[in-house]
């Protein structure tokens, strides 16, 4: 049956992850032994204990959650507004603006760390959580995603609303935004993933240990000459879970034919 095939293929696909998850539950010394020790004894929680001993994990988790959630919200709103403008309006400079937005995707952050830091310094956002919430929120990818999706919304709906005298803001709020639900869900999941996994931004912005995010703390397990592999894998598995929860919560918005059904004939 197709369902069984789906699960089997998925599990094969996840091979490396299963290795990582399995290794997380074994003591560090068994990690890279050869041949791989596949027996069920040797199960150990010491790596997970080490994770919580490595720092104020609860605080880092809170910071990560706050940053990812707020930033994703900003992203969804800003992107859907921009996508709406670019998809359903013709105005001078539209194409140029779209290209400029896309162009900003082509600038690797690694190369522009200094100028970005200077901008944040001017705003007083250095070492503040707002400095890792707002700047990455305006993602050109989000705008692009929304633009493409909103192009798929039939013009008739908007025409009809205009004839009824609705303002653009009303159209956005009551027609576009609800119909965008699938793409907003996708963008929300992706944006949450990105912000949750951000490393470079927090590296530049944050100096105080108490404003660290989970990723910064995880990265610190890669020591100067040696890596705490066991702890790192355990940490990575734990850090994974909230994002998957977000995925599960939001994916029910990918309902089939929901948008198309709004247009009858």
């Amino acid at each position, binding site marked *: 049956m197709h*369902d*069984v095939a*789906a*699960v089997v293929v*998925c*599990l094969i*696909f996840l091979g*490396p992850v299963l*290795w*990582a998850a399995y290794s997380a539950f074994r003591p560090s010394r068994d990690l890279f032994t050869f041949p*791989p020790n596949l027996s069920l004894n040797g199960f150990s929680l010491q790596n997970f204990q080490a994770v919580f001993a490595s720092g104020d994990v609860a605080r880092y988790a809170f910071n990560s959650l706050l940053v990812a959630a707020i930033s994703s919200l900003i992203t969804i709103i*800003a992107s859907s*507004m*921009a996508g709406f*403008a670019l998809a*359903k309006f*013709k*105005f001078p400079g539209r*194409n140029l603006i*779209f*290209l400029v*937005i*896309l162009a*900003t*995707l*082509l*600038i690797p952050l*690694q*190369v*522009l760390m200094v*100028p970005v830091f200077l901008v944040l310094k001017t705003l007083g956002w250095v070492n503040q959580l707002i400095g890792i919430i707002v700047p990455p929120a*305006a993602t050109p*990818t989000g*705008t692009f*995603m929304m633009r*493409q*999706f909103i192009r798929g*919304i*039939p*013009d008739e709906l908007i*025409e009809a609303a205009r004839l009824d005298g609705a*303002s*653009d803001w009303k159209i*956005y709020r009551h027609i576009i935004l609800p119909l965008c639900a*699938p793409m907003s869900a996708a963008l929300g*999941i992706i944006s949450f993933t990105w912000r*949750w996994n951000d490393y470079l931004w927090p590296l530049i912005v944050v100096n105080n240990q108490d404003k660290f995010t989970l990723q910064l703390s995880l*990265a610190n397990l890669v020591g100067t000459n040696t890596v705490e*592999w066991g702890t*790192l*894998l355990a940490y*990575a598995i734990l850090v*994974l879970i909230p994002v*998957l929860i977000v995925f*599960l919560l939001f*994916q029910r918005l990918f309902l*089939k034919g929901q*948008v*198309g059904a709004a247009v009858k*004939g």
Partner: protein
Amino acid sequence: MNILQPVSRANQTQGFKVPTDRKHIGFRLTPYLFLLPTLGMLTAFSLVPLLYGFWMSLHNIDILHGRSEFIGLRNYFNLLHDPKFGLSLLNTAGYTLAIVPSIVVVSLAIAIFLRKSTPARLFARVGFYIPFVLSPVVVATSWKWLLNEDLGVVDGFLKWAGIATVPWLTDDTAARISVVVTTVWNLVGFYMLMVLAGLSQINEELYDAARIVGANPWQRFWRITLPMLRPTLLLIVVLATIHATQAFETILLLTDGGPANATRLVVQNMYDSAFVRLEPGYGVAQSILLLPLILFIAWLQMRLFREEKII
């Protein structure tokens, strides 16, 4: 609607011109107002740094002594003669050409396969998404260990099956394949999401009608799904192209651009210039040189997908 005709995009146009007969100021300003949040943030955090970066690229910045010297376009001139930059460019081109079709095909296949919302498929969706969420350290480490030619599982299996082992990370071609496979594995969940969102936009009635007329699954795919997914496909192709040109961290951890610069891509070259050789001006110059090139490719792709004229 005549269901025997291929689905036309006629009712999904590019948007309508702002009516000029209405002397309503609000109307003309609206699109700009809607764009303001995004443009505002991008200007502050991407465009302004980019301009400053351009200024940096016109200098020879000496971090060791805290000095910088204006040299005009000399960095750009040197770039055109830099064999390492040229090689990284070639590698990036090859990488992009391999990645983009792979991602399109694989993410389409997975998304369509997992379209139905049965519990098993919902679980599978999460499964395919997980690699995207893993941090690059874990992705690179696990793949590097699996592909280890002395001790890795993959070559172990090949040996057991009597096939010759493959030097996955130490032979130029094999390393390139390994890098492509690892990246596709890592990213496919992201693109799968977008296809899922795009698929949900397709009216279920179209499929019902097609089934009544006796269309088989393949015909339904070609005549309904694919055309209706056109905006999504463009999205994926352009984004995958852009992501391919920006690929850096996972590859760095997997092969460090090795074995002998076979998998060294442009962003690694930029990073090397800026942070190892301590020539940040030269590093930024590379990204600015590439910008119009990649933008041009994106524009070409949009033309190819027959979107309205961009420029």
